[in-house]
């Protein structure tokens, strides 16, 4: 790997992505304080670059005001509400980029003043404009993109408004192959501010309670019956599962039958693997699949989650982040949806033991054709530390895929941004400057947003793909990048995964030193397959459903 400066550089402030999260803590240890914030990358104005939405907290507790806050928000964060930043990227003739963000919250119509936890994105009515779901400690909000730079809150009329709860993760997916994006909402704990349970440590020092104190809240699956009208089908579609406190959701075809399945990361109880039965229902199979608990049979904290084919063998493997002392988990898929826990063998397990991970994703940061991992970390318990107002900060970690099933912790080489110790939560992955490598927006609890601009990836060859059908990004579509000179790479268009965040739906595949023009075989969510030959590289192209050669 070339040695030219930091691999990632934080450019948030200099580009106008000026956002500081406020968690509303006043020393009462209200459980939701440790969960947020999530962040979303979405091209809401269809100008070809990724805009950023960050969720915001509020003061918590009856009668509390900002003067009671442990860590008061800076004046520029007021009024407290989720913020939409428009990306005004300029690409000069010489190819250099000028990144700049403008806070367009006021004119966007997004009025998000609940206690925000996470975000998910998808075009729910196939109008070609991406919509935004906000998960809250409260009721969730669905904002319809009016395709003119503004949004309308359609939570009630869309049918997704539920009773107040603690929802963190959500994912849009077309599970029934009808061409409309359905919605899975992962709920966390059964919690109200009136729950006065205290959880001191052995010496009586008060800390945040573990989720088992409150118990889980059932997740919800909403079927899109057309044009963004949703019907709650949880009871019939998700029968027989024992729900836990959900923090992460990743959707992919785990058993290779062509139908999209759902993996749910639960905090402290068994994770769930809902296998699509191709009839509108799912069957929960995580335990026998080897994806419910760790190799000792113990449920883990399971916060951020992502699925991808990291070993280039054609199936979706799983990664999820855990608590300090548990180590993050890497589960290898055998192609039929049976997983083997290789966390220790891969090196990721031992290297992540000192960390509590949240946002995380598979991405090829150096474009060498192998998917790597970045985790943003931050504790949820004091863990032997006694000082500070909110002493839950930790460093991020970057793991480089060595191609032999092992990963190297390259955090120390990644740049100064990785030396920062912050209470990391959300992380959204995408090519924000459209230069052919994946950048990362990190949302910190009680801290500033970081924009980690990748300065290393596009030193290698790459291919950017937008997979479009029904006028929208086809979340769940997979593409096989077939090459004579290297292994076939299989990637999926997805916005879900990570933690409480939404990623770039485009596929960005690193090609290493290969200049070969590959053949692309796209499998659309409805099961149809098309092929494009001799595709030019080192650029973004759009593959539209129906535009390729049909394949069986």
């Amino acid at each position, binding site marked *: 790997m070339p040695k030219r400066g930091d691999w990632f550089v934080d450019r948030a402030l200099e580009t106008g992505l000026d956002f500081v999260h406020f968690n509303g803590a006043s020393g009462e240890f209200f459980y939701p304080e440790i969960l947020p914030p999530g962040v979303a990358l979405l091209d809401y104005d269809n100008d070809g670059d990724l805009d950023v939405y960050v969720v915001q907290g509020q003061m918590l507790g009856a009668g509390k005001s900002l003067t009671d806050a442990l860590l008061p928000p800076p004046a520029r964060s007021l009024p407290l509400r989720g913020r939409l930043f428009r990306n005004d990227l300029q690409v000069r003739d010489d190819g250099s980029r000028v990144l700049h963000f403008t806070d367009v919250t006021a004119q966007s119509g997004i009025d998000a003043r609940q206690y925000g936890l996470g975000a998910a994105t998808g075009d729910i009515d196939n109008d070609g404009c991406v919509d935004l779901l906000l998960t809250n400690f409260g009721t969730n909000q669905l904002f319809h993109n009016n395709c003119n730079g503004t949004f309308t809150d359609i939570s009630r009329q869309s049918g997704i408004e539920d009773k107040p709860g603690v929802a963190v993760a959500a994912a849009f997916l077309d599970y029934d192959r009808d061409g409309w994006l359905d919605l899975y909402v992962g709920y966390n704990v059964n919690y109200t501010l009136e729950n*006065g349970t205290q959880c001191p440590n052995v010496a009586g020092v008060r800390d945040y309670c573990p989720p088992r104190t409150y118990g889980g809240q059932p997740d919800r699956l909403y079927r899109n019956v057309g044009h963004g009208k949703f019907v709650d089908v949880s009871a019939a579609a998700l029968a027989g599962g024992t729900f836990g406190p959900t923090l992460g959701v990743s959707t992919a075809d785990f058993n290779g039958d062509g139908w999209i399945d759902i993996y749910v990361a639960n905090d402290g109880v068994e994770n769930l693997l809902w296998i699509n039965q191709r009839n509108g229902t799912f069957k929960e199979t995580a335990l026998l699949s080897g994806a419910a608990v760790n190799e000792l049979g113990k449920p883990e904290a399971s916060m951020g989650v992502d699925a991808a084919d990291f070993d280039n063998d054609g199936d979706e493997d799983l990664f999820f982040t855990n608590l300090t002392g548990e180590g993050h988990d890497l589960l290898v898929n055998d192609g039929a949806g049976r997983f083997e826990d290789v966390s220790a063998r891969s090196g990721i397990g031992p290297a992540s033991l000192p960390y509590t991970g949240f946002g995380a994703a598979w991405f090829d940061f150096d474009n060498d054709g192998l998917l790597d991992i970045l985790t943003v970390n931050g504790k949820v318990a004091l863990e*032997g530390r*006694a000082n500070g107002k909110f002493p839950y900060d930790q460093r991020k970690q970057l793991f480089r895929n060595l191609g032999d099933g092992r990963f190297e912790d390259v955090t120390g080489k990644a740049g100064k941004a990785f030396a920062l110790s912050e209470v990391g939560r959300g992380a959204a992955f995408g090519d924000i400057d459209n230069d052919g490598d994946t950048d990362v927006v990190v949302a910190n609890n009680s801290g500033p947003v970081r924009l980690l601009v990748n300065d290393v990836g596009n030193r290698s060859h790459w291919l950017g793909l937008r997979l479009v059908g029904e006028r929208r990004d086809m979340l769940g579509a997979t593409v096989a990048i077939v090459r004579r000179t290297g292994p076939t790479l299989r990637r999926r268009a997805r916005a879900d995964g990570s933690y409480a965040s939404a990623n770039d739906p485009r596929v960005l595949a690193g090609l290493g030193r290969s200049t070969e023009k590959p053949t692309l075989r796209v499998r659309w969510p409805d099961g149809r397959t098309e092929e494009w030959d001799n595709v030019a590289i080192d650029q973004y192209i759009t593959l539209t459903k129906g535009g390729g050669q049909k394949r069986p």
Partner: protein
Amino acid sequence: MRTIAALAAVVAAGCAPHQQRAGLQAVSLPDLSRMVPSAQTQIRDSYKALTQKIATRSTTVVELADAYGEFGKLLMAADQRDAAKPCFLNAQTLAPADFRWPYYLGHLHRKNGDLSNAVAAFERALQLKPADVATLVWLGNLHLDEGHPAQASPRFERALSLQPSSRSALFGLGRVALAEQQYTRAIENLEAVLRQDPQAAAVHYPLAMAYRAIGDTKQAEVHLRLREDRQVLPADPLIVELETLLESPQTYESRGIQALDNKDWPEAEALFRKGLELAPDHAALRHRLGTALYMKGDVRGAEDQFEHVVRTSPGYHLAQYSLGVLLQTQGRHAEAIEHLSAALKTKANYTDARLRLANSLRHVSRAADAVLHYDQVLVEAPDNTEARFNRAIAFVQLHRYRDARNSLADAMQTHPDESLFAHGLARLLASAPDDTVRDGARAIALVQMLLKKDQRTLDLGETFAMALAESGRFDEAASVQRDLLRGAEQSALKAVVPRLAHNLAKYEHREPCRTPWTTDELP
């Protein structure tokens, strides 16, 4: 507190000879301000003892090492690992031959997730005590965590050679084999652990994965059903000592919970009582004391403790719930309703309390109210089979037989593995007073389906007889009922004999049963 810390710092500076001689790390009192008073006092006293040792010229090196080590132990027991670390390092520097200090350091690093330092510390401990089984097992476990099963294997083998009955070492070897994808060997080792200790529930999951890997899914599923979230750990007296060191209500609570987990009710009671001596108003401790007493069989004592909590802390929903459950089991439903309602007032989404409340409401002829609560339980926990079944029973109590039938039929679809729904439906189809609900043929088919699943219970036999009678097959119904009656009499099930005899008389008079469940049968 700051004054004491400053004073201690001065004292430490005054004892420079010791620090300079040994090149020791600075040790200071951490922020104790948020700790309970008993822990603060204990830690301050220990720190004072340390500083006195430092300041006393006649203190031997071994005494000083002990003072550092003891302070470190107390800090570690108080979950002050950052502060404990230099204490252990100093103790180790001063007394390099003392096994305890690298051993505790190993655990400290292990808890911090710092594998390489943990391994190094345990290696040092092992050099000092080469035959220590606990150290060998922890080293083996750490090597497994590092992804190095080949390094773990000799540690476990050595531990096993020293202590052939060591379950943790044998379990470790099973894990090594699993990590090396030697599934048959893994099965041998893990099955051997289970032979030694059938209660070693932690073995079941890795064993299930080994069976799955060799294609024996049936065995895998058997072990998955048996798995529990427990560990197989070596006997570890030094860690036990650490866990009993700190004087705080929370440590007594946590040790009491361990005793409860081990079903040692008297020990749990004693520990909770000690905790209450430190914090008499600690609602959680008193509630747990009530639980321990209840488990011990002292129902009156348990009730007293629960009542004490709800009197002094009416918002403590767990005690309200426990008292409600206790009263419910005694059939005191009106009082149970009061306390379960109070639990829900504090915690509106307390699903278990709502379910219990609904059950008690049914018993005081408030089935309509019960239905509302069951509905809410099912919103909160859609898969709660007890709520789903009892809601149908509430419909029966309200004479809403069609609703009951439909509810049970729906539940059968969503919970095909739960036979209680099929059985409940069969009972209703066989004997509901509503003519539009009964369907003898379908009831018989359901019973036969359940019989094929070996669900041969007295209840199901009664349902079978009801279904036969409903279908006009009175002679067969009477024959089945006679067999049941004979069986009940032989098994000394006296309580059910009158009911069985009553229905038998009906069948002998060619009358069907029109009472799906008698009052004493209702759940």
